[in-house]
């Protein structure tokens, strides 16, 4: 077995027993990157030298001591670019570490590089990137999903053992599902957002993308916790997620299957794979119950009002005055703003800024923004009433498998529907996990989404872990070919 195939938990055992040095491990990963990256293009930036320097001195007894990790390009690392895959942040170097980065460094992790994404996390295919396309390791003609497509593709193709992504409407779970790896969106407030370049502040969460659920638990444990620098992070105790994986009993457990998530238009093979996974949980002793989340049909519209409204203000700071790319030809201040932003932002970002500006405009605020806030509450209530009856929900992560590059890029509405099953979790502020649960006949991964109540990551992680253990999950090696 090649070193790059290992999971974090396996590597931890080798490192602690000194059977493997962090330097050897890091070098092994870099040779895998050298081999695979030309086909996948998962990274926007790699810092080989810095990683090796770090590997030489890192303490392997720390929780992630010596484990290399990839970081999504919207999370700030001191002295590294933080481009958010945008032209407008060309040449920008961040002067500070995000809270999660501080935590990773303290835990002994080695930062390898920064992964590609949809510009400012706006997209579901990583096609909206100013730094080029990332390919799906299972079929190089297909997208890896998005917006954390680089992180998912890197983990799935074993050019990263684990990665951080961010999830505003499904941006961790959907690419994890498309690439066949594990992705977790923690409860809103679980992980500090300080240092995550904001897309939609009330929905954004940083989370792990890993090869196994066990690894996701390890990583979540490290990055979680209250942060005085993030007013929206919660003072909640952080359970030892990795130690709670085996403690779950399916006896007396009710798993809900929301009927609104099995709609027309869902791919047949996806439906089949999910039903099989549901049956598997039933065979393990869980009680399966159909439930209803009646406001599900409004989730996408609600999301695109709230997220774009917040984004229109969050992205206002990119004006070329203090940092980033600036237009060279302009007449006056207003023209300078206009040209800098016109040249710097891609079309999807512009579309969302326009949408967000519109819904906040005087005369439209009540009809759109205020109403969307009310629907968000309804969606939240849907989940809380369902979680009185069951401990978690089982749904597809995405209605379809990875689509072809260019297939949906000219149809924003079709693209928005790729997140139809993930968006409500962000609106409700709860947690969701995507794990691989089979393949299509074309060999494309299918993702099962396990949704849990707020602050119950240990439940969905334990369910995911149980599924992987009982099905004998081994992170596969994708073909890295065009099919």
């Amino acid at each position, binding site marked *: 077995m090649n070193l790059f195939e290992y999971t974090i938990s396996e590597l931890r055992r080798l490192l602690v027993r000194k059977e493997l040095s962090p330097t050897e491990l890091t070098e092994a990963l870099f040779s895998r990157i050298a081999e695979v990256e030309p086909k996948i293009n998962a990274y926007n930036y790699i810092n080989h030298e810095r990683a090796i320097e770090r590997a030489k001195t890192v303490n392997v007894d720390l929780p992630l001591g010596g484990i290399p990790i990839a970081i999504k390009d*919207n*999370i*700030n690392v001191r002295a590294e670019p*933080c481009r*958010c895959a945008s032209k407008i*942040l060309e040449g*920008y170097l*961040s*002067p*500070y570490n*995000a809270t999660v980065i501080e935590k990773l460094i303290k835990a002994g992790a080695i930062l390898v590089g920064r992964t590609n994404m949809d510009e400012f996390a706006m997209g579901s295919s990583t096609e909206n990137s100013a730094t080029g396309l990332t390919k799906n390791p299972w079929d190089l003609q297909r997208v890896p999903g998005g917006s954390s497509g680089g992180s998912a593709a890197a983990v799935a193709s074993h050019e990263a053992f684990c990665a951080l992504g961010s999830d505003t409407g499904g941006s961790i779970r959907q690419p994890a599902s498309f690439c066949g790896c594990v992705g977790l969106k923690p409860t809103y407030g679980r992980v500090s*957002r*300080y*240092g*995550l*370049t*904001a897309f*939609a*502040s*009330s929905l954004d969460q940083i989370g792990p993308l890993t090869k196994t659920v066990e690894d996701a638990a390890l990583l979540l444990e490290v990055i979680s916790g209250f942060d*005085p*620098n*993030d*007013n*929206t992070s919660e003072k909640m105790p952080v359970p030892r997620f990795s130690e709670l994986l085996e403690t779950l009993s399916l006896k007396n457990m009710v798993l809900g299957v929301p009927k609104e998530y099995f709609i027309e238009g869902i791919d047949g093979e996806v439906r089949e794979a999910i039903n099989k996974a549901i049956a598997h949980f039933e065979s393990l002793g869980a009680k399966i119950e159909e439930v209803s989340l009646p406001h599900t049909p409004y989730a996408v519209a609600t999301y695109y009002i709230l997220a774009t*409204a*917040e984004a*229109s*203000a969050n992205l*206002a*700071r*990119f*004006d070329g*005055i*203090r*940092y980033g790319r600036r237009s060279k030809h302009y007449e006056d*201040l207003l023209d300078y*703003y206009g040209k800098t932003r016109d040249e710097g932002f891609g079309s999807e970002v512009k579309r969302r800024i326009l949408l967000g*500006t519109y819904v*906040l*405009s*005087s005369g439209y*605020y009540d009809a759109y*923004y205020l109403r969307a806030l009310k629907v968000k509450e309804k969606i939240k209530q849907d989940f809380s009433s369902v979680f009185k009856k069951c401990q978690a929900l089982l749904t597809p992560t995405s209605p379809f498998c990875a689509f072809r590059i260019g297939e949906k890029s000219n149809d924003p509405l079709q693209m928005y529907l790729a997140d139809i099953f993930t968006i409500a979790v962000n609106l409700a502020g709860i947690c969701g996990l995507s794990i691989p649960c089979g393949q299509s006949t074309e060999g494309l991964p299918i993702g099962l989404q396990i949704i849990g109540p707020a602050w119950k990551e240990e439940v969905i992680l334990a369910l995911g872990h149980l599924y992987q253990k009982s099905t004998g999950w081994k992170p596969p090696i994708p073909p890295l070919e065009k099919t």
Partner: protein
Amino acid sequence: MEYEAIIGLEVHVQLKTQTKLFCGCPIEYGALPNSRVCPICLGLPGALPSPNKQAIILTIQTGLMLGSEIAPRGKFDRKNYFYPDMPKNYQISQYDQPLCKGGAVQLYPLAFPKDAQKDPQAQSRKKIRLVRIHLEEDVGKSFHFGDYSGIDFNRAGTPLMEIVSEADIRSPEEAFAYLTALRQILRYGNVSDCDMEKGQLRCDVNVSVKPIGEEKWGTKCEIKNLNSISAVRKALKYEIQRQIHILELGGEISQETLRWDDLKGQTFPMRTKEYAHDYRYFPDPDLLTILTEGELIEEAQKRIPELPEEKKQRLSQHYGLTEYQASVLASDPQLADFFEKAAAQSANKVSVANFLINDYLAVASESETAIPIPPEYFSELSNLVDQGKLHMKQAKEIVKLMVTEKKSPTLIVQEKGLAQITSLDTLDAICKEAIEANPKSVADYRSGKTAAINAIKGYVMKKTKGQANPKIVHELLEKKLHELG
């Protein structure tokens, strides 16, 4: 036709906190440009605001001091507009849920400009009601150098409190008095130093005029960014006349935003484009709702000192001062404290007050806020006068010397040989001499013209270079004249 003005004020006050509103950067006036900044106040990607509790407490305290209703839940909103001195291109402010609603500022005669303190309007004891008080962050400062501009972000993120009055003000003098009274309360509460030169108190003014008796208000104009209380008065005087003049000529006032040119003494329209905004306010998703009940309000309450009106009443009742004396002393809490310390050790409280008001304030330097000498000096001085060891004219001279030389009155008296001659033996001899030297006055006195004693007394005072205690001299002379039969 007679016109009246309708005026409302929006006052921005820089709160006296150690650090900025949403980050830990120190607030320091005059620091090297862009040396007091961090990712948060520069609006770098990913940086998040964390509210400064002290700023919230100071705002609530202000509300409590001004009788506002404190909102149980306060909320921060984003006010969106592009400007180079605004790092995020939105300002974190409060829109529909300000921390404080209502309240009022009480006007009093001394708050009016000196030349208007005798006017009936200064005696009216009017209350100017408040609409709201909210908390927001300041922006940076732009500098223009020939063909380029620079921005200093040291000020960006400084906590500002915006106090909005109702349109209760009717004259430039009332506006002056409102600001003076408001500033006094803010200084009392140690909420802000309100140093206008440092931009710690800035003011926007809304003004319209209408013929007296008319119900409908006229079209209002806004004068932005006035940075001294006297500029507010001057700008309003000018602007009211300008509007009346237009109306008298049959014209119409157009609603506009103006700026005041202090040198030219005129208001000028600003480019209207600059302020034609849809700010697209919405709740800032980075910040939680502020729950004021409990700790925040309790902390704010603890900080509330005795307020000017209460202090005035207490001073006048407790020390037997006139309203004027109490007002002057209470105008500055430090002066009032100083008075109370000095009065504590003095038999004659009113005389201590008079020395402070009439003599000390006349020589005190404007720039120095703290009184440079201990309060005991004033008790000593008033006691010396009371015991007849100094007369009033000498005491007044000594106040000046106390301040300039920073010496106690006893020491000054010794050094200058100013002490009164109270020794009975010495005075007895001089009085005897005086009677012998003034036979005519003695005869007059004995024939019933008692006022003639003054001439004899004058001789004694002249002889002693004014140092004789007049009271003792008077008694001695009377006694001697009676002895003469």
